[in-house]
Structure formats: structure tokens, C-alpha cells
């Protein structure tokens, strides 16, 4: 009883310090976004003008007009969206099938095949960069979207995720369908897929995000500007020494964030599930 006032003050100080830490870290996280947004509405002289302006004194839409009119942003967004969606759909199909195969079937060499699958996860992309480019050139896939969609579509990470996810499904569901004469593929499409659809959303969000934000892949494979994705287009606005189009670059950056921001805020819980699944359960 005697110690209570002291404890009270102490816990208040602690809680004040905790909020101080959280708030300053949050400020550090938000600052680049604020400055990006602010710069995208500034005229060139104001971007590095003194004193700094958070709300631009000469507010302008010019930067946004420039990227849509001069840099064909509609086309670039269309490209990025096409690649990301096709990659996501194909990956979800292949990885859920693979995960289901490993979770619900017993077959010869299962252990060896699964170890091989896990082993491929530690191969860094750098080792594959040159030879994959050579192969893509042989296939005539350079400057098409295919190198960014096909090779990664059946990735080990996704199969691992869906193996965990499908292992909890009750076998009786499948057995009942088998008795009714349904084919294995039909069982997968009609019974398994609907059950794992929440997991598909979780992992699909991660696939979509990774593809949308990819830079190295498009840099290697997409040559003509009409095929560029958003990250290449942002990068292209740097025009040699001191000539960077900072305003348009930030306008394009803001636009590049909007789709993912909307998806993330709507599906926040699913998003976290997709990210933590491999780390914590595995």
C-alpha cells in the first residue's frame, strides 16, 4: 500500500517512454511517405527550396499530368498489373496443387522429392541470373512478360505453405467424393480449392506484391519502354547528372503505392498470415 504512489509514477513514466519510442519510430516510418506525397505536388524550384514546405506553397498537378501524358503511365500500369495478376494466378494454381499432393498422398520417393524442394529455397537468385537469361534468349522470351511469370510460378515457398494449409483438411471429404466416382483432379478443383481459398488470398497477396515491386527481373528482361513495369518507369525518370525529374518521379512513386496500399488495408489480417506462415510454423 505504501509503495503505490511511487509505483504509479514509475509505471506512468514507463508507459510515457514506451509511447515515445512507438511514436518516434512511427514518425520515421511515415516521413518518407509524407515527403514523397508533398514533393509530387511541388514545382521544381520548391522541391529543394528553403525553408522546407510540407504543404507546397505553389500546389501543382503538373507532375501527375507529365507522367500520364509523357511517360505513358496507363500502359505501364497495365503491364505491371498484367504481369502481377498472371503470375499470382498461375503460382496459386501450381503451388496449391503441389502442396495438396504432398499433404494428402503417400507415394514412392516422397521424402526425397520434398527435401529436394526445400533445398531449392536456399539457392540465391544471383546464381541463376546469367544462365536463365541465356535460356530465355534461346526461347525468344526476352522483352516479353513470360520470364517474369513462368519460371517462379511453382515456387517451393508456396508449396510449403499449402502443404501446411491442406494437411488439416479431413480425409473423409475426399474419400466420399472418390466413392461417388469423382476424378482426383475434380476433387481438387471442386472440394479442395474452395476450402483453401482463405489461404489462397493470403499467399496471393504476397505473390502479387512481390511481382508488383520486382525490379531486377524487369530490368534484365524488359527492353522496350512500352513493355516496362512501374519500377523501371520510376527508375527511368532519373536523367543523368542533376537532371532527375524529381517531381514526376515522386508522382509516379505515389501512384505505384496506391494499389498495394488499398489491398493491404483491406486484407491486413490475411496479409500477415501469408508472411508469418513460413517463419513461425515452419
Amino acid at each position, binding site marked *: 500500500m505504501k509503495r503505490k504512489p511511487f509505483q504509479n509514477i514509475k509505471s506512468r513514466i514507463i508507459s510515457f517512454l514506451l509511447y515515445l*519510442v*512507438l511514436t518516434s*519510430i*512511427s514518425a520515421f*516510418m*511515415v516521413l*518518407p*511517405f509524407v*515527403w*514523397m506525397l508533398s*514533393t509530387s505536388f511541388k514545382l521544381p524550384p520548391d522541391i529543394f*527550396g528553403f525553408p522546407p514546405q510540407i504543404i507546397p506553397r505553389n500546389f501543382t498537378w503538373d507532375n501527375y499530368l507529365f507522367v500520364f501524358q509523357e511517360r505513358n503511365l496507363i500502359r505501364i500500369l497495365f503491364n505491371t498489373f498484367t504481369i502481377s495478376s498472371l503470375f499470382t494466378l498461375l503460382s496459386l494454381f*501450381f503451388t496449391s*496443387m*503441389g502442396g*495438396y499432393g504432398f499433404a494428402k*498422398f*503417400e*507415394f514412392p520417393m516422397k521424402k526425397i*522429392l520434398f527435401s529436394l*524442394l526445400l533445398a*531449392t529455397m536456399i*539457392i*540465391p*537468385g*544471383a*546464381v*541463376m*541470373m*546469367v*544462365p*536463365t537469361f*541465356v*535460356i530465355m534468349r534461346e526461347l525468344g522470351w526476352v522483352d516479353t512478360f513470360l520470364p517474369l511469370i513462368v*519460371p517462379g*510460378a*511453382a515456387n517451393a515457398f508456396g*508449396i510449403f505453405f499449402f502443404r501446411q494449409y491442406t494437411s488439416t483438411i479431413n480425409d473423409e471429404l475426399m474419400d466420399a467424393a472418390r466413392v461417388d466416382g469423382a476424378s*482426383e*483432379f475434380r476433387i481438387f478443383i471442386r472440394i479442395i480449392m474452395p476450402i483453401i481459398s482463405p489461404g489462397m488470398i493470403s499467399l496471393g497477396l504476397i505473390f502479387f506484391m512481390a511481382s508488383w*515491386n520486382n*525490379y*531486377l527481373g524487369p530490368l534484365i528482361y524488359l527492353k522496350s519502354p512500352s513493355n516496362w513495369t512501374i*519500377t523501371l518507369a*520510376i*527508375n527511368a525518370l*532519373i536523367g543523368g547528372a542533376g537532371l532527375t525529374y*524529381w517531381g514526376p518521379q515522386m508522382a509516379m*512513386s505515389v501512384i*505505384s*503505392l496506391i494499389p*498495394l*496500399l488499398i489491398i*493491404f488495408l483491406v486484407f*491486413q489480417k490475411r496479409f*500477415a498470415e501469408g*508472411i*508469418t506462415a513460413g*517463419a*513461425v510454423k515452419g
Partner: protein
Amino acid sequence: MNIKKLTKSNLNKPSSSSAWKQIKKSRWAYVFISPFYILFAIFGLYPMLLSLYLSFTRWKGVGEMAFAGLVNFALIPQDRVFWQSMMNGVILFMLYVPIMLFLALALAVILNSGKIKGFRVFRTIIFLPFITNMVAAGFSFRILLEKQNGLMNMLLRIFGLPTIPWLENIWWARVSLSLLIIWAWLGYNMVIMLAGLQTIPRDLSEAALVDGATPIQAFFRVTVPLMRPVILFCLITSTIGSFGLFPEVMTLTMGGPVNATITPLIRIYGVAFGSYQFGYASALAYTFFAMIFLLTVIQFRLNREQV
């Protein structure tokens, strides 16, 4: 009849054919898992073997491939830029990984305590950079850190402090890069640690507190050991990450000043697609892979010994 059939089949079927039967019986399982192995064979295994072959050749990407024996590998010890890039990976690792993982775990513990109002808001804000593409992030950091009139240096000047050559000095450039990486990855690591914390029983650290441990003691003596597997996961992904940085460096520092922030991945990319030395790039890539592999194994070992 039944018995006869059974014996007959037992006698007539050698074991290889029964294995074949097993395989045939589970053909659907193979169909389901086949896309991975088909794609891996074409876009994984074949490139790796091709790369191994290329590392013993001189090849400009077009024209004749000249077999060169170990010439490429003999060049590697003298490749200063490559060793500098490996060194940079180590330096960057030491600059940002301990701070980032400590902050991530501390934030996760604070947010997990259940005493924070606005828990969701803080978690969302700290995670937000993770969904940002690193090209946009790198360039906005560059605007913030600009030498003359970037916001950071303007603020320093307003408070009468000397300005900082954020991107022009070797060590400051590494610090700036570390700031960008911490900004981008802190939320990711925090979310993973949060999920890890939810799997360990809360009463353990509470029991420690009841027994008279300070919160800081409880954190280091109870929470950290229990979180070891999750921390190891974050540590390994960060190790691989710090050697494979690409867009962050290309947009913020472009590898400079004087190669102080160049990473192995950028070096290999430059050799391959800048000067089209496909053979040498392959040799570098394999050396890099071997070293990363060794590093990961060592981290696993060290962790196992300490348990």
C-alpha cells in the same frame, strides 16, 4: 481360387514391378506435384548446370564459347571490387541487423503486452514500408538526404548543427543505406516476432515478473531464449538479404561512393550485363553461392551449440 490367385501374383510379380504398381497407383500425386519439378528442371537445374559450365569458359554472351579451364576462378582472388562487395555485405550486416532485430523484438514485446492503446495503428504504420517498392523508397530517401537542401540537412541547419554528407561519405553512405533497410524491413521482422510471441505462453514471463525479475531481465532471460528459433529465422533471412541488396543500392547510392555500398549481387549483375563477361559472372556467382551457403551453415551450427 482366391488363394491361388494371391500366390500366383506373389510369385509372378518381381519387386520392381510392384514398385511400378505403387507409382502407377499414385500417379495423381505425381501429376499434382509435377509443375514444380518440370519448371525447376527447365529454369532451375538446367541453368545451374549451364552456369557451372559457363564458369569454365570465356563467353561474351554471343558467338563462340571458348573453354578456359580455371582461368575465371583464378581471376577471382584479384577481383578487388568483388571482395569489396563481400566486405560491404559484412559491414552492412553489422550496421543494421543487430539494431533492426533488437528493435523488432522490442517493438513486438511492447505491442504484445496488451497495454498499448492504438496497437493496430502502430503495427500498421510500422509495417507499411514493407509493401513499398524499393525504387520509390530509395529515391524518396535520396530527396530527404540530399546534400544541400534535403530535408534532413535543412533541419540540421535550422537547429544550428553541421550538415551531414549522407550519401557522399563512405561511412555515412553505409549508414544511410542501413537506415533505408531498417525502414523497409523493421515492420516485416516485427510482424514475424509478434506471431512468434503469440506461440510462447505468456505466463512464463509473467511468472518471472512475480518472482521479482525486472521487465528487462524477463525480456533477456525468458523471452529472448524462447524466441530463439524465430530470431534465427530473421537472422538468416537478413544475412542472405544484406548480400543480395539490389534496388535499394541502385536507387540510393548507386554502389558509391568509391564502391563503398556495392553488393555482390550488383557486382555480378555488372559483370554479366554491363561488360557481358558471362563466363566470369558465372564463376563469381558460384563463389558467392558457396560463401553464403557456408555462412548459413555456420549460423545454424552456432545456434545449435548455444542451446
